[in-house]
């Protein structure tokens, strides 16, 4: 292994600009002569807009224009599209209501945009927005899916009866019924997967600019996938052909899913800039982020697990209510279906699985993918119900898991819920995590804690995820309205340095380093001779972007394919220069060599020859050394692993202290261990945040009660311990690098492990389940409710 090649702990190329304050985030960009946009947003969760009077606001200082839905309609501006069509059990397509850029007569959640004010300064735009007079007819609202599906509940869309978008299912219901009929034991569990706010530290921002001379539109935006935004906004919303629309996503301050989607503000600044013939900028404040960034999770689930007398899983039955919010966000419908139901085999051999998901509209902010996206929901419910079953049957939870793990020699393994796992070893990662946590001697620690009046518990969770979405044809058959390949262009310059263009945007993942390692390793050139370019449709031919831990499995595979092409062409050039047969040329360590001889040309010499083709097979080969490849994955990848968490609970305060967090993961081949560890750390923090701290809460009228960092508890440095990590690799069998992806794992495995530890800690009190987040108040109340009463009470 070289110091910068595959497997090396290379410090990041991108860091210099960030540690010196020279990153360029969207809000750092100011265009000459720019105006500002501020949006008037609904203070009500559900209301009819009887009248919007902009007369006074339009006369405010600095105001250039005020736009409402009517202005957009006059220009035939379309609605924001949904990228995945789901069909219900009965074969009918999902209800797909319009998603107007500005509210069309009705607002459906707090924060729904009503009018866009364009003014000289942000403050002037904001002041004018506050002067717009809106006559609201407030309508009844519903925020809880369990209420929304009842007859007589407020109707958010007339076409969606009982607020149901679709009623989807997957699996063999009859087989599951039969499994339950012969079960020796059935474990039942109702649980909530709490709603979360992604809260990337950089609030969303967008700048639109229109060049009157060329008719070209440019959008700078905080996006994980600028090409997808160009496609959706250009084709469906603003009807701008792609050759006249450039979308740039510069440095982006975190995404976690929330910056995948096409948002109204992107279309508004692009459209308004052409209207007012000046650049238009919008930057969200954090309050807007809370009420306009797509949120995550929000499931209510009933699950039943059938087991035989030996604890073997026979069948799993799952029924979920999934909250979609008021509108369909870009990929919202795929999350509680194909990224959730298909993961319900987990790491286990459960032969029969049936899942039904009813997706429900409510008067809340739209819900879409947030780190893990469907897979944390699946993993959490599985790992909770497995622990509950272990408790009911009196089997050690690690032993019950081992009895049901997919055997090491069973790959490729076909699950009953569509997926085929290519490789894995769940025994080893569980054993690694348990050993690291000294699971064997835990009871002594429980006893010692009890002597101090504390409850101590240990919990584990295994997880599997499906990453690197996905074969385009398969996804298309399941309702995806896009391809899911990735693109790479390797541009070798005449002096042998390389610019790599990738469609996978980097917003913290370190692509500029990991991808450069791939190039340096393969071409045998120094890593500082490689520049990675991403995030600009004007530079990169195409790309599907960064989500679902796909950048390395899919984007990296495209890079390898393009590098293969570069090497193949280099061999032809070398064969000509060395007067040898092409088949005799070997490429190794940056040299094209005639096999068995010392005759060789360096990579740099070949590059120069490609661009200065004086001695060159010009009849057979074009000059230049610039190769593009598209890679369409053959399957998902299946990262998996085990997390173990130990907690101690103070019964007087209900505070949960994390005594230890251990993760053992299988990510396949690892390119940069330092970056992978960082990804796991961040994922763990978000998963632990979900389990202990974070909860997005609306009151019954639809007001967002957790609309700031004052009310929404984000994990802080003193909430978390240092984590203990380990890895065990089984290679992916169907991509060229053997990589699986690591971005989401931490957030998928940890909630179950934390909650299992908490339930274990409180098990002496008879506690069987606690919903997330396990806040001090919730823990304290649970302890109070279960504590043995004194005789006098």
């Amino acid at each position: 292994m070289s110091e910068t090649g595959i497997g090396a702990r290379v410090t990041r190329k991108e860091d210099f600009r960030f540690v010196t304050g020279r990153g360029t985030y969207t809000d750092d960009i100011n265009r000459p002569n720019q105006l500002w946009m501020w949006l008037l947003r609904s203070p009500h969760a559900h209301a009819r807009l009887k009248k919007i009077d902009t007369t006074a606001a339009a006369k405010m200082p600095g105001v250039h224009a005020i736009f409402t839905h009517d202005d957009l309609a006059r220009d035939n501006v379309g609605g924001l599209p949904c990228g995945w069509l789901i069909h219900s059990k009965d074969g009918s397509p999902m209800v797909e209501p319009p998603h107007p850029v500005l509210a069309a007569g009705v607002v459906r959640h707090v924060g729904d945009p009503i009018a866009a004010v364009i003014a000289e300064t942000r403050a002037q735009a904001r002041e004018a927005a506050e002067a717009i007079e809106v006559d609201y007819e407030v309508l009844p609202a519903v925020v809880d899916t369990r209420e929304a599906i009842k007859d007589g509940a407020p109707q958010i869309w007339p076409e969606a009866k009982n607020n149901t978008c679709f009623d989807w299912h997957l699996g063999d219901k009859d087989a599951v019924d039969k499994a339950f009929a012969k079960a020796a034991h059935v474990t039942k569990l109702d649980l909530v997967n709490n709603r979360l706010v992604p809260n990337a530290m950089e609030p969303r921002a967008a700048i639109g600019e229109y060049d009157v001379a060329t008719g070209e539109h440019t959008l700078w935006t905080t996006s994980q996938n600028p090409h997808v935004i160009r496609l959706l906004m250009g084709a469906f919303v603003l009807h701008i052909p792609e050759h006249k629309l450039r979308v740039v996503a510069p440095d982006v301050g975190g995404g976690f899913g929330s910056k995948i989607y096409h948002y109204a503000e992107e279309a508004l600044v692009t459209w308004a800039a052409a209207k007012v013939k000046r650049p238009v900028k919008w930057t969200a404040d954090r309050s807007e982020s809370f009420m306009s960034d797509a949120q995550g999770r929000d499931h209510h689930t009933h699950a039943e697990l059938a087991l035989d007398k030996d604890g073997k899983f026979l069948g799993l039955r799952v029924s979920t209510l999934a909250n979609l919010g008021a509108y369909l966000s870009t990929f919202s419908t795929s999350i509680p279906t194909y990224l959730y139901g298909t993961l319900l085999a987990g790491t286990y051999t459960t032969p029969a699985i049936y899942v039904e998901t009813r997706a429900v509209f409510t008067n809340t902010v739209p819900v879409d993918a947030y780190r893990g996206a469907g897979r944390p929901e699946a993993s959490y419910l599985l790992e909770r119900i497995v622990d509950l079953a272990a408790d009911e049957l009196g089997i050690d939870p690690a032993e019950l898991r081992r009895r049901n793990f997919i055997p090491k020699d069973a790959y490729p393994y076909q699950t009953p819920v569509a997926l085929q796992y290519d490789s894995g070893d769940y025994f080893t990662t569980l054993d690694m995590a348990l050993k690291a946590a000294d699971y064997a001697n835990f009871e002594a620690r429980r006893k010692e804690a009890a002597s101090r009046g504390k409850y101590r518990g240990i919990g584990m969770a295994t997880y599997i995820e499906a990453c690197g979405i996905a074969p385009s044809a398969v996804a298309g058959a399941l309702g995806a309205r896009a391809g899911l390949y990735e693109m790479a262009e390797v541009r070798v310059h005449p002096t042998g340095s390389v610019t790599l263009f990738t469609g996978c945007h980097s917003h913290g993942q370190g692509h500029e380093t990991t991808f450069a390692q791939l190039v340096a390793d393969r071409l045998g050139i120094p890593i500082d001779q490689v520049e990675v370019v991403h995030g600009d449709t004007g530079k990169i031919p195409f790309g599907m972007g960064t989500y679902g831990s796909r950048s390395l499995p899919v984007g990296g595979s495209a890079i390898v394919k393009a590098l293969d092409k570069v090497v193949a062409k280099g061999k032809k050039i070398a064969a000509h220069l060395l007067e040898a047969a092409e088949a005799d040329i070997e490429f190794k360590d940056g040299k094209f060599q005639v096999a068995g001889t010392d005759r060789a040309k360096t990579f740099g010499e070949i590059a120069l020859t490609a661009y200065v083709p004086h001695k060159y097979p010009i009849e057979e080969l074009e000059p230049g050394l610039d190769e593009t490849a598209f890679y369409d994955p053959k399957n998902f990848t299946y990262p998996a692993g085990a997390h173990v968490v130990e907690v101690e609970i103070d019964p007087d305060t209900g505070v949960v202290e994390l005594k230890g967090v251990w993760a053992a993961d299988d990510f396949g081949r690892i390119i940069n261990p330092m970056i992978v560890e960082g990804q796991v750390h961040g994922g763990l923090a978000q998963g632990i945040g979900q389990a202990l701290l974070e909860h997005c809460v609306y009151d019954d009228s639809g007001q967002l009660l957790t609309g700031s960092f004052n009310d929404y508890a984000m994990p802080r440095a003193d909430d978390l311990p240092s984590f203990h990590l380990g890895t065990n690799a089984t290679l992916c069998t169907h991509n060229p690098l053997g990589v699986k992806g690591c971005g989401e794992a931490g957030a998928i495995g940890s909630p179950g492990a934390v909650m299992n530890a908490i339930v274990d800690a409180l098990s002496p009190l008879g506690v069987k389940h606690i919903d997330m987040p396990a806040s001090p108040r919730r823990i304290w109340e649970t302890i109070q409710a279960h504590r043995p009463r004194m005789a006098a009470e």
Partner: protein
Amino acid sequence: MSTIEQVPVTVTVNGKTHKRFVDPRMLLIHFIRDELNLTGAHIGCDTSHCGACTVEMNGMSIKSCTVFAVQADGASITTIEGMAAPDGTLHALQEGFRMMHGLQCGYCTPGMIMRAHVLLKENPDPTEEEIRSGIAGNLCRCTGYQNIVKAIQYAAAKLNGRTIQEAAE
């Protein structure tokens, strides 16, 4: 609004003195970003909860989104742009964040480094617990803080003339 009279402020930032007339309501973070074009300090929440806007003012780390520019009149401020030596050599904290992978998206990093800078002045050799407590006012959504702690330990070791431990231990 334009009818409000602008007021003069004189602020020394990274050793250079700037005189401007500003709206009384202008926040210090906007003064730094928009008037001085120093965009290293970021805005993450507008409410002093996240610390992305942290700068050093008169020796204290402050959240510049909740300080008016006029309150900084006469003050001496250091921002992330003023941390490296004039010859470009990175400060021990900047080097530590890079060596220990103490950043991912980089958005919180300038504020985090400025907070850590003041922390290390207050407590030159902090324990992990003291570091975690000392940076608890600064949010990071990417790193889980573990490598930020290591980055600050790296800097403390370097500033104290000790050998620097390996990153991943």
